[in-house]
């Protein structure tokens, strides 16, 4: 019995220790973001916190413009993906047709294309069509991973709804489309919300495409971090402030979709 008692104490302690280690780097970035330059370099724990870095980032570096760029790209691509993806998901969930699974897996494989493989054709096509550094180009390229993701996620959510619900609606004289609008859509709302949040997170985080396909006007948040390395040295405090602001929405959103994480992180392949 003694051994069991000791185990019950050790396990939680070790677990929380691991969680602390996991979160430490993020906490560390936050600390640096509220330090003055002297305190960052001289490394002391007793310092007066300052929000100067945040103010500088917003006033001097026009950070709000990059946030707005990110938001408009992310919102547009998410809305389009959810619309097209949910429709297609319904098609995959409720109809039987030839080669359905092959088609579904082809769609899934698109989600896994390496960004460095697609960035070259997009770059050249963007140059030809004069779309480089335009938000539209980013919206289009982000559809490439968001639509497949939405299809697979929403297919899972739709398959979870019993078919009998729809069938009784058909008997009452609803068409397929009406059934989709009146029965399916309202019932998958939570799933739709979760899928939108996942699309938001992965588009907000995207770096490689944004980095190569924009230069100034349409820069998104992840691509501006490196601009704080100047001839005068690295502006650690400002950089950290950008980092904290950039990951804040992501952390909040992750908490919101906590229930669906397993599903989201395997693209709906595993029911969490």
């Amino acid at each position, binding site marked *: 019995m003694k051994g069991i008692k000791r185990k019950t104490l050790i396990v939680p302690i*070790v*677990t929380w220790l691991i*969680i602390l280690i*996991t979160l430490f*780097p*993020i906490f*560390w*970035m936050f600390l*640096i973001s509220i330090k003055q330059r002297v305190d960052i*370099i*001289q*490394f002391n724990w007793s310092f007066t916190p300052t929000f100067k870095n945040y103010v500088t980032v917003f006033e001097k570096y026009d950070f709000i413009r990059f946030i707005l760029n990110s938001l408009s790209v992310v919102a547009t691509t998410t809305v389009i993906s959810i619309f*097209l993806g949910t*429709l*297609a998901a*319904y*098609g995959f969930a409720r*109809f039987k*047709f030839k080669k359905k*699974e092959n088609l579904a*897996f082809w769609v*899934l*494989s*698109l989600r*896994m*294309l*390496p*960004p*460095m*493989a*697609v960035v*070259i*054709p997009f770059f*050249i096509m963007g140059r030809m069509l004069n779309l480089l550094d335009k938000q539209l180009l980013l919206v289009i*390229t982000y*559809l*490439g991973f968001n*639509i*497949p993701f939405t299809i697979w996620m929403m297919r899972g959510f739709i398959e979870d709804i019993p078919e009998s619900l729809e*069938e009784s609606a058909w008997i009452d004289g609803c068409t*397929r489309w009406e059934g989709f609008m009146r029965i399916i859509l309202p019932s998958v709302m939570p799933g739709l919300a979760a899928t939108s949040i996942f699309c938001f997170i992965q588009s907000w*985080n995207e*770096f*490689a495409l944004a980095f190569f396909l924009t230069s100034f006007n349409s820069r998104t948040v*992840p*691509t501006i971090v*490196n601009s704080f390395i100047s001839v005068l040295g*690295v502006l*650690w405090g400002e*950089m*950290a402030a950008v*980092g904290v602001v950039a*990951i804040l929405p*992501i952390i909040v959103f*992750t908490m919101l979709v*906590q229930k669906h*994480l*397993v599903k989201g*992180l395997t693209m709906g*392949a595993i029911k969490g």
Partner: protein
Amino acid sequence: MNLNCKHEHMHYIAPALIVLVLITIFPTIFLYIISLTNYDLAQKPGSLSFVGLKNYWYLFSIDKDFWKSIGITLIFTIVSVGVELILGMAIAFLLDGNRTFRRLKSSLIIIPMVVTPAIIALIWKLMLNTEYGILNTMIKGIGLHPVNWLGIDTALLSLILIDIWQWTPYIVLMTYSGLQTVPSEPLEAAAVDGASWLQRARYVIIPHIKPILSITLLLKTIECIKSFDIVYGLTQGGPGNATEVMSLHIFRLGFKQTHWIGRASANAVLLLVLTIPIITLLSKNIKYSREM
């Protein structure tokens, strides 16, 4: 119930499919074509021409850095995924052993893998800095020599460490959620029969969570092969080409030093090819677990 005409599914699927073909198939074909040309961003107009498989031949027989980048990608992938698997499973078992605050614990532990990768590179740049990074401050604190974390011999190791920090939570989450679905009867029966914890894990638990684990591992492997953001943010492939994974080699060929888009495209095609077997395996596994 058959209310639909024969092709009604297309009404729902076609819009998304058309968009996907336009924005993925079309560029991919374009990529194949460019990889057969001498396309160069610094080229004089009119000198663009087809060169056949010359770009591929260049990569295979002249460009030693290409082979090195494959080696680095493989080392990075195998070591990271291997350590993450072992560590992640161990932590998941630990979490499973103590279920108080489990929701809170699993949502806290997952944070590193949803944080913007570009920001992760930044965080670790702060922590690994030789002069005033926290890691070296701690090392100096216990009287050891500070380490040059992003030096020629250590940079790849640092990248692997970061990957482990970032992605072990993924394995933890997946294993942990798999563990929740292990039925209790066979476990109890095994315990009654006197099976040790290790035997129960080996014969009951692991076989049960194997499908979810293999999908997770394959997804993670693809993630590793694709990796660009953090490597770019932290080392840009350097020092020299010590951390030049395949994506970074493409970057160097096409955008950074030279503007050989043709050669970079050939390399990108090969990167695509490298992911195909893993994606095929993944499809098989997902198909299997959906049918269960």
